[in-house]
């Protein structure tokens, strides 16, 4: 217990750090500048560890990675104007993936607001549509309540980013600090909804009548901490589980009821299963266009039950039969005792047949012909790191989809990736945040050569903070996913997708990071082992096949079952997992 500080007079800057500390935060990610300098000066009185980033976008992704890996609120700090606007991409990323972060920005003095002062930007205006909520603080006596509210709003209900813009004078001037008196006052905020009894009964009725049900497992399971409940539910009712990209890890990959990822690059049998189903149980997912394909033909014969904490998601994309609005874990607790155990072996056998017809994981069986495929790299990385407490942080593009297909995640918070916004440049900084949140975990960045170059300045942050983060660049010399779209839909006109890259190994060495370049499959495992054994950060430049393609693929707007499949089918062997 902290001693009571009622009546103590402190500067706004001092109150800021005191409150952040009391919220349980030990590390913040930031970059100083004029309007936030009073706060930086006050850091010397705080136990908080500040991690100096190289670009404010990095700070937001780090806070995001910290939140997703550690299940707690991440904090990013920046100055006014350009410092604040550099945060925009990271805030939007956290918004679309419901990640709880609090961004603190300095603002010009309150008397200068509106005068186009040096480094003045209306950042609350700019971030209004991409934050869950934001604040402008102009008095030291508003700091404590605002920070408490910001943390509460960020982490409760459907989590999201909250920005607090604090004027320079609000940081410099003093106010009485009283933690208890600064309780959040949010009369309009209701994060704690729960379904009605009638809705539970309707849901149970649909579940018990269904012969071909599928659970669609989303990010909400991980946020709600409902992994065990989902597992109990699936096992008791005998219902198979399909995962969204952000749902990966919410249900163990090795579980017999696990189907794998659904959607645009989901495994073919998963998409077919959804199309054949008579009941979809959506658990903390939002029917994103990347998982539904064409809505008109989506799961045409299925009733839908949607368990979701955000009422605004109900009937947004897909019309549902029974909405259960509330915290997933609590809702499943209510449902579980009433769920009857039903033999669904007929349905599961049918899915097995669909599975037999598919060969999404075919590429790992390609003979070692001197070519290096990204799938080889990811599959080998999985074999080597599967037993540990490993966190894979990916960027966006082909490598991200291959990771989702070839790395089998058994645990929640073991894959961190930008799903909703699809932010290139996310991986490296987010991995730093993940490592800071979970220092004991083995953290790997899996990143394309395009996305890596968007935020590679954060290599310096890794070195300065002495963080053991391993980086696997899946280097194909192209903006691979864009190139793939050009291949399929733009007559192979590779406009602006070939990349002229630096020597990534030399680049890493310039930062003092050990590096390797790998061009053959036989070198993959040794390089991964060597990286794991080294006690500092390691970068491996995997030079993979240049024009490889992610299969299967549901073209944008196509029906979920209309997938572009790999032209030459290769049958899986028993030796492959």
């Amino acid at each position, binding site marked *: 217990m902290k001693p009571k500080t009622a009546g103590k007079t402190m500067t706004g800057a001092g109150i800021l750090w005191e409150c952040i500390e009391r919220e349980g935060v030990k590390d913040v990610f930031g970059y100083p500048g004029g309007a936030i300098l009073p706060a930086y000066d006050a850091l010397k009185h705080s136990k908080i560890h500040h991690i100096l980033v190289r670009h404010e976008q990095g700070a937001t992704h780090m806070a995001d990675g910290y939140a997703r890996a550690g299940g707690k609120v991440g904090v990013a700090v920046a100055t006014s104007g350009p410092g604040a606007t550099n945060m925009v991409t990271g805030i939007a990323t956290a918004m679309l993936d419901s990640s709880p972060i609090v961004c603190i920005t300095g603002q010009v003095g309150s008397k200068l607001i509106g005068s186009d002062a040096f480094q003045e930007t209306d950042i*609350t*205006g700019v971030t*209004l*549509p991409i934050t*869950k*909520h934001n604040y*402008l603080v102009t008095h030291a006596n508003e700091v404590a309540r605002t920070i408490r509210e910001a943390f509460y*709003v960020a982490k409760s209900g459907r989590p999201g980013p909250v920005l607090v813009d604090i004027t320079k004078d609000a940081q410099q001037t003093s106010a009485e600090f009283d933690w208890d008196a600064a309780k959040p006052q*949010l*009369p*309009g*905020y*209701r994060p704690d909804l729960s379904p009605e009894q009638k809705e539970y009964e309707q849901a149970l009725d649909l579940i018990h009548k269904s012969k071909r049900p599928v659970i669609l497992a989303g990010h909400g399971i991980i946020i709600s901490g409902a992994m065990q409940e989902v597992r109990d539910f699936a096992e008791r009712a005998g219902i198979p589980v399909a995962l969204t990209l952000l749902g990966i890890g919410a249900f163990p990959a090795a579980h017999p009821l696990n189907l794998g990822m659904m959607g645009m690059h989901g495994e073919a049998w998963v998409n077919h299963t959804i199309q054949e189903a008579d009941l979809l149980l959506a658990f903390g997912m939002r029917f994103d266009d990347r998982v539904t394909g064409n809505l008109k033909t989506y799961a045409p014969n299925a009733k839908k039950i949607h368990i979701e904490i*955000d*009422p*605004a998601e*109900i*009937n*947004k994309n897909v*019309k549902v039969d029974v909405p259960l609005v509330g915290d997933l874990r609590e809702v499943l607790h209510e449902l579980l005792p009433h769920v009857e155990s039903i033999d669904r072996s007929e349905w599961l056998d049918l899915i097995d047949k669909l599975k037999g017809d598919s060969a999404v994981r075919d590429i790992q069986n390609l003979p070692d012909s001197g070519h290096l495929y990204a799938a080889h790299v990811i599959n080998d990385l999985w074999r080597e790191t599967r037993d540990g407490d490993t966190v894979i942080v990916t960027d966006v593009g082909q490598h991200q989809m291959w990771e989702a297909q070839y790395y089998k995640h058994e645990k929640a918070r073991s894959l961190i990736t930008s799903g909703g916004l699809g932010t290139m440049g996310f991986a490296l900084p987010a991995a730093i945040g993940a490592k800071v949140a979970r220092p004991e975990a083995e953290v790997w960045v899996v990143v394309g050569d395009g996305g890596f170059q968007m935020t590679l300045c954060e290599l310096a942050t890794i070195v300065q903070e002495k963080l053991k983060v391993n980086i696997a660049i899946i280097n194909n010399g192209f903006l691979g996913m864009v190139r793939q779209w050009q291949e399929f839909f733009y007559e192979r006109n590779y406009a602006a997708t070939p990349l002229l890259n630096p020597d990534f190994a030399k680049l890493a060495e310039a930062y003092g990071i050990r590096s390797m370049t790998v061009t053959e499959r036989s070198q993959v495992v040794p390089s991964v082992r060597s990286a794991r054994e080294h006690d500092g950060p390691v970068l491996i430049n995997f030079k993979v096949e240049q024009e490889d393609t992610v299969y299967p693929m549901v073209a944008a707007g196509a029906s979920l079952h209309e997938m572009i499949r790999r032209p030459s089918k290769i049958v899986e062997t028993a030796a492959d997992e």
Partner: protein
Amino acid sequence: MMNTFVVYVENKPGVLTRVASLFRRRAFNIDSLTVGRTEKPEVSRMTITAEADHDQARRIEANLYKLVNVLLVENITHEPSIVRDLAMIKVAATHEARSHVLELASVFRARVVDVAPDSLTIEITGAEDKIDGLLEVLRPYGVLEMVRTGIVAMRRGKNTISPATAINGELEIAEDDVSQSV
């Protein structure tokens, strides 16, 4: 169809922007928005009308609730309610036309609030279609200028949506307690 929402919000800077921005962001078009004080200084009341089907209207409501500063949202489209718009219409009224314009205004129970040598300004309060009706018959004389407030709306009878209920939680409405149109 046109939906009418009564929205209680915290009276804080930027709340109007948050509400307006929400409609723009979710691609709903505001037909009319009015905002004003309530009997509690910390609470403002908005009346918003927007074109939306049943499902869209429900999502507008849910999205409004996601705004932290929004206290209470009521879709009163299908509720017995009083809906009023106020307009001031400046009509060209030369000597010969003046008496005709005055007559029309009186038929519509509108008031003349300004008289100038070449014009009359008429104030009218009522449902939107009543104002549209007056406007229609005045147009031949020459409408020089017009301003409308946008609609304000309130449920009839004892079904009270007050700032106090907005702050203290759920609204309780007795379904049979509805007064007649007057």
